[in-house]
């Protein structure tokens, strides 16, 4: 039971390492930004699994905060890609 949850946690961490591969190797700049976006969502999954494993509910708070900050970061990067100034 607990061992099975441990295995799932390690699989999720391994998936986020795969995203790091795309961030490092990616041939163009937008490829790396896709990697950053997906990495942010995967970390939220890690937070949720740890919240089950330790029975602490406040780890979910960290997850929601991570969603919000990752969203604002993605919008800023997308606005940078459209070659506009940030206050337009």
């Amino acid at each position, binding site marked *: 039971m607990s061992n099975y949850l441990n295995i799932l946690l390690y699989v999720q961490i391994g998936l986020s390492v795969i995203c790091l591969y795309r961030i490092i190797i990616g041939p163009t700049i937008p490829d790396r930004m896709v990697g950053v976006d997906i990495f942010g969502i995967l970390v939220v999954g890690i937070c949720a699994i740890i919240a089950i494993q330790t029975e602490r509910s*406040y780890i979910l*708070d*960290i997850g*929601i*905060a991570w969603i*919000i*900050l990752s*969203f*604002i970061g993605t*919008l*800023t990067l997308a*606005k940078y890609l459209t070659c506009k*100034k*940030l*206050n*337009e």
Partner: protein
Amino acid sequence: MKGMTIIVKKTTQLIAGMIFMYGIYIIVHGHLTPGGGFAGGVIVAGSFILVTLAYGGDFLKLVKEESGTTIIESLATIMVILIATAGFLFGTRVFFNNFLPKGVVGQLVSAGVLPLYNIFVGTEVAASIFIIFLSLIIFKEESPK
């Protein structure tokens, strides 16, 4: 109209209020859960940054907004100093003296003056991070080539 596409604008309408409330939640529960003044302040500043990104600079009248946030930041700093030196009024000679009742562990109103510190530190951090963002996007235009 300037800004990003209509999808981003409409989603910003629905989500900016929720992000602001979530930041307040992190600040107020700072003595019970991880987070506190700094982390909550960053999220509150994030809601304003989101509105500025989605609607463009003309929507918020950026220059007026900048002077307003400067005033808020200074007031928050003065309040933190006042609470820190309030211990002198009660006859002791220490900074950050706890003069309020401590309450029950685990309730929302407990831990003495700690929630007050969290609230003012959160206001301070939110205002200053928004000022940093505004100065990055305003002063870039005026700098000489």
